[in-house]
């Protein structure tokens, strides 16, 4: 029997028996076969001692059962690692940061409690997936859209708490959260925002309630277990259209991003935007590199190549959702603004009116039409998994140039090609900033994983040296990334620890999440 750290087998057996009495024997998993189902399928530690392996899993089906589990865990100091649908792939999936933790699997808590298509929100439990919510809305013919992340089997609760992103105007998922129910480490149930008011009629309509606004404290954290969450939805739009903007030269990127930023921050462009470079794609297709590696072609040579081949250097696809007259005007306004860049060209794209048979739409567009799917997995090839490295950088052309140079230099030092699984250019996933989405491959091969872990750490360190931090990371690198957020002698991290000690003195909730360890498991900082 694998044991939680610091827990003897006698106490662990007692705890498991009490878990069984609380939630039913069939929902307490202790066999090796079951425990294997909670390991990270994309682990960077396959066949290594450091692989995160839980000691057991428990699967309650309601908030009262969660409370009971938490109370038992407090008695025996059992670490509980909470998962919702368990599909946080590339970030650890179902696996804990601390081996020996008991997985608190909330998948059975899969009730859609309300979907309101007049005020446009949903109230859901953690085990509900984007697929479930979409199907419910379709079956009930409700006039709202969800904003799924690329893989649709994740949880709106889990993804929002991890501050995941989508493509539509509701793409910043944590920003769409309105009201939570949380089980604290002492077993008490708290409702945030207007939910604290008994009989409140606006729990999912006004975020802040009265007094300090605490919802952020429960995201990417281990301060409580979220058992219900309100999320704002988008009114089903009447129409969708998109169009492409292209500029010719390398240095056009500066006004190009400045214009994009103006349009996004003015809410003219409201969806996620991926930066693209047809010319760099061409360079890669000819055996060249996407990043600016040392010894690569000069800016002048690249501009000349673009001119000869008639390939634009930079491009974006802008997407618009809403009433036809408004989105037509938004696209026209965007073209007008980008026209200030000499040589800018435009191409009208798709133009849809709803309802329509969107099954025929190309798979890559489905998430932008609010339809959950798994087509993104088609981008992964050759590996058995991947980690996402995703630093936030400023939304400027200068920042992109610097990042392409810095990562190119790093890739050269590490002897790597410049291709990666997703993109060599950043996304405007979130408001006001860019994020890079790099895939670092994992394998069932210890040597290759060891090398890629070192690459990952170098990416984190090099990014931090340039003022770029990750927005989210795999359980194996949570300490590394948290350590980079070190302003004023790690003041924020120390505040996290103070909160942890106050709210969870026995350190039972998700030890190690986001690098936050309870006092009894804390290591001295290097």
């Amino acid at each position, binding site marked *: 029997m694998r044991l939680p750290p610091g827990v003897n087998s006698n106490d662990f057996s007692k705890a498991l028996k009490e878990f069984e009495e609380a939630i039913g024997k069939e929902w307490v998993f202790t066999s090796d076969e*079951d425990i294997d189902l909670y390991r990270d399928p994309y682990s960077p530690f396959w066949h290594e001692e450091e692989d995160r392996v839980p000691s057991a899993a428990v699967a309650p089906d309601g908030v009262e059962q969660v409370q009971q589990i938490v109370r038992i865990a407090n008695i025996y100091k059992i670490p509980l690692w909470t998962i919702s649908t368990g599909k946080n792939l590339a970030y650890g999936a179902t696996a804990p940061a601390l081996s020996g933790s008991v997985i608190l699997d909330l998948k059975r808590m899969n009730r859609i409690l309300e979907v309101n298509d007049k005020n446009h929100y949903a109230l859901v439990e953690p085990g509900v997936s984007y697929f479930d919510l979409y199907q419910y809305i379709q079956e009930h013919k409700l006039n709202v859209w969800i904003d799924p992340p690329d893989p*649709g089997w994740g949880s709106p609760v889990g993804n929002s708490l991890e501050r995941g992103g989508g493509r539509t105007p509701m793409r910043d998922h944590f920003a769409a959260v309105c009201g939570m129910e949380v089980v604290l480490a002492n077993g008490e149930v708290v409702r945030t925002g207007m939910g604290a008011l008994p009989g409140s009629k606006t729990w999912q309509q006004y975020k802040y309630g009265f007094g300090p606004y605490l919802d952020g404290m429960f995201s990417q954290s281990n301060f409580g277990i979220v058992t219900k969450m309100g999320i704002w939805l988008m009114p089903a739009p009447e129409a969708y259209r998109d169009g492409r903007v292209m500029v010719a030269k390398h240095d056009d990127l500066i006004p190009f991003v400045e214009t994009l930023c103006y349009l996004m921050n003015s809410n003219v462009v409201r969806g996620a935007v991926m930066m693209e470079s047809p010319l760099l794609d061409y360079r890669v297709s000819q055996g060249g590199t996407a990043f600016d590696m040392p010894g690569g072609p000069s800016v002048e040579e690249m501009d000349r190549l673009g001119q000869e081949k008639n390939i634009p250097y930079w491009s974006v696809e802008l997407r618009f959702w809403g009433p036809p007259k408004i989105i037509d005007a938004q696209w026209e306004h965007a073209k007008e603004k980008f026209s200030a860049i000499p040589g800018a060209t435009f191409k009208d794209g798709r133009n849809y009116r709803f309802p329509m048979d969107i099954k025929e739409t190309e798979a*890559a567009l489905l998430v932008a039409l609010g339809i959950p799917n798994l087509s993104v997995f*088609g981008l992964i090839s050759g590996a058995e998994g991947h980690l996402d490295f995703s630093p936030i950088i400023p939304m400027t052309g200068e920042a992109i140039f610097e990042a392409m140079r810095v990562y190119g230099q790093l890739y050269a030092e590490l002897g790597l090609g410049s291709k990666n699984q997703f993109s060599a250019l950043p996304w405007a996933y979130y408001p006001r900033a860019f994020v890079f989405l790099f895939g670092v491959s994992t394998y069932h091969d210890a040597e290759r994983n060891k090398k890629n872990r070192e690459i990952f750490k170098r990416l984190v360190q090099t990014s931090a040296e340039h003022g770029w931090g990750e927005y989210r990371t795999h359980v194996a690198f949570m300490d590394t990334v948290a350590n980079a957020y070190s302003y004023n002698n790690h003041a924020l991290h120390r505040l996290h620890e103070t909160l942890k000690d106050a709210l969870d003195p026995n350190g039972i909730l998700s030890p190690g999440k986001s690098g936050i360890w309870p006092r009894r498991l804390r290591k001295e900082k290097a």
Partner: protein
Amino acid sequence: MKIAGIGLVFVLGILFVRPVLAAPDESAVQKGETVYQKWCFPCHGTGTGKPATDLLAARDKGIRPAALEERTDMTPAFIKQFVRHGVLYMPPFRRTEISDAELDALCAYLTRNNKH
């Protein structure tokens, strides 16, 4: 002799083959189809944007259907192995996602057209 031969085959059929030849349990097949639609179809189904179907089509080059629901060569043990252990970037599925009973139903659905 001929009659005896048929009789022998019949007897052997009762002893060894009949459990396999039994008509698929329609209710299990229906339940299994629901499980398939929920958990398998988004990657393994027919139509565009099904990454596992695309991967298997590229690998098998027409030797067998790429969409799982069209295959007739999978055994329950084979299906259970992949569901509970995963492969490549397909993760395993937990009992809180697909219960043992649902997995049995899924096997009934995916083997419904198998020739025995």
